[in-house]
């Protein structure tokens, strides 16, 4: 029991709340694994959320809505990619400017649609719903986004660990020049990763305006999420499973904030709401000390091989954020 939330309710709402965040964070993981930082997340999430809601409302089709969200994300990805991969501009600068631009663009374009009714993605009962015990019913009645998110975690893990394509992607993130010398095309691989990642981010955004916080408005409710996703990727040491766990932890903190309110009536509700963000960021510090000063221990020794080892080893892709100029 957290405050007045029973465990099943808690688990249920954590799953629901974390799904979009997981999708977004995994998208960014993909991008960063290829060596590009897409810092525009915070704005892009809002922008795609807006696009998704508007389209879904106009066409009255959730599918088109999600598609629009994804494409909106992809479009911003195109900008980040072109600016950093082909124009060799500072990725952080581009990302940051784009982030603010997208946010305000979303507010501006979405203005006519703020706080109007639109289609929302409902939680679906599982086939064997009635046979389940009550607590499980609560936990397992979830919108499809949750199942998609969980599936994505698994897919990402396999992609990075076992697939040849995953290896090439990682190699580009580590040393683009070398992978070029090996006959790969770093530019194209990075662009693909950025677009795919941004598409996922867009989907995540759509998941907010169409499922988790249905509707559009200023504020929509997804503000700040992009920054958290970015932090999660580091927190997760660029490892899909850990990133996802991080997302769930964040969702847990946010949800329990509501429950805790009644435990500590003295503390204003607002404080509980801001708490998860710093908590998230400062786990990074702990991470840093727990994994030992990364500046000292540079490369994994044999012991860190194997699933568990990889899970707790965190190292940024060597070429992360550095633009690769082909000679």
């Amino acid at each position, binding site marked *: 029991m957290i405050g007045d939330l029973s465990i099943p309710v808690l688990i249920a709402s954590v799953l629901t709340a974390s799904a979009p965040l997981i999708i977004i964070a995994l998208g960014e993981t993909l991008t960063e694994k290829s060596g590009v930082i897409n810092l525009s997340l915070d704005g892009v999430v809002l922008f795609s959320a807006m696009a998704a809601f508007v389209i879904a409302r106009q066409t009255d089709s959730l599918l088109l809505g999600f598609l629009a969200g994804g494409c909106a994300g992809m479009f911003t990805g195109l900008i980040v990619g072109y600016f950093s991969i082909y124009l060799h501009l500072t990725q952080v600068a581009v990302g940051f*400017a784009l982030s603010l631009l997208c946010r*305000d663009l979303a507010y501006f374009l979405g203005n006519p649609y703020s706080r109007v009714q639109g289609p929302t993605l409902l939680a679906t009962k599982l086939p064997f719903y009635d046979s389940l015990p009550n607590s499980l019913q609560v936990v397992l009645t979830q919108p499809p986004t949750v199942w998609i998110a969980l599936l994505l975690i698994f897919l990402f893990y396999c992609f990075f660990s076992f697939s040849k394509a995953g290896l090439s992607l990682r190699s580009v993130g580590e040393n683009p020049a070398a992978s070029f010398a090996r006959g790969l095309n770093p530019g194209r691989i990075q662009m693909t990763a950025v677009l795919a990642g941004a598409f996922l981010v867009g989907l995540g955004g759509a998941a907010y305006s169409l499922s988790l916080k249905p509707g559009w408005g200023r504020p929509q409710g997804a503000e700040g999420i992009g920054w958290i996703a970015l932090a999660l990727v580091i927190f997760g040491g660029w490892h899909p499973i850990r990133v996802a766990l991080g997302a769930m932890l964040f969702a847990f903190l946010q949800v329990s904030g509501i429950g805790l309110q009644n435990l500590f009536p003295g503390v204003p509700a607002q404080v509980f709401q801001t708490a998860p963000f710093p908590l998230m960021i*400062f786990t990074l510090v702990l991470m840093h000390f727990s994994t030992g000063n990364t500046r000292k221990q540079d490369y994994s020794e044999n012991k860190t091989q194997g699933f568990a080892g990889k899970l707790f080893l965190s190292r940024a892709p060597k070429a992360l954020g550095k633009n690769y100029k082909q000679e």
Partner: protein
Amino acid sequence: MKNLSGAKLTERAAFDILLGSILVLGFTALILFITGAPVLAAFQNIWLGAFASTTKMSQVLSVWIPLILCACGLLYTFKVNLWNIGIEGQIIMGAIFAMAALRVPGIESPLLRLFLAFLTSLLGGGIWGLLAGLLKTRGGVHEIFGGLGLNFVAQGFVLWLIFGPWKRPGIASMSGTELLGRELWLSTPPGWRMATAGLIIAISVIIITWLLLEKSHLGLNLRAVGQNPRAALLYRISPENYYLQSISIAGACAGLAGFLQVTAVYHRLIPSISSGYGYLALLVVLLAGYRIMLLPFLALFFASLNVGAVQLPIVLQLDSSLSGVIQGCCVLCALFILGIRQRRRQS
């Protein structure tokens, strides 16, 4: 570009500016067109909203002041390649410390109390900056995320104060702490909405920054650290030291902005005391290409956009965030042109 003659440079710059403005205006017009809003009317209202009357112009200045303060601070951190995104939190902390000083009982002279607030705001912002710096140098947390974390902490802190210890008698509310006594408001010229003291502070900060960065060893050392920390060590320049110095200075500047927000603009502490000026300042500095000479003008441009855009909802029922769209667009276009240029030079 060292092999280019001055005339050629200015010519090229003029061309860039022209190209940039065309791109920005084009994009914005497109956006307006999409929403079916009257394009010209929108621009015209923004312009009038910023410059129609002295009251409005003074309002623009009152936005310009915190903006330029933060921008100057950011110059220091950019020199050492730090992305001081924590600047928002540093503004808030400056404001909080200033407020705390103003609440100190027993001091009679308003001037003394204000001066105390002035100093503590420097301290508050500085400490908050230093913290982000330490998180980076000691905690190995990238300054962007350390900074964001601290922003949220500051945000939570100010809310807690407003709803907790410092809540106004009777009801706590988002409208912030109780209003300061008139004697603690920085005086503004009649009919104006901008404190003269603020203007003086801002201008002197610009000058000091210029001197430090261009004429003193500090500027050069910061630059060296930014370019190659490892090498800096071989020149008896301790990178860690300069990271902390630069980010604390930046924090102090932001703190000043916070001080002015409290004593000159809101006359109380409100949850969103920073008004997003920190992030806006980051954009200004990016647009200026880290050149201090351009800062005042671009900051003025951004400020007038902010103020002018308030007309959009009043007159045209458009959302005022159009200003943000224009601002972000300016920066992206500037970057774009820069990128194209570099590309040209290589081939």
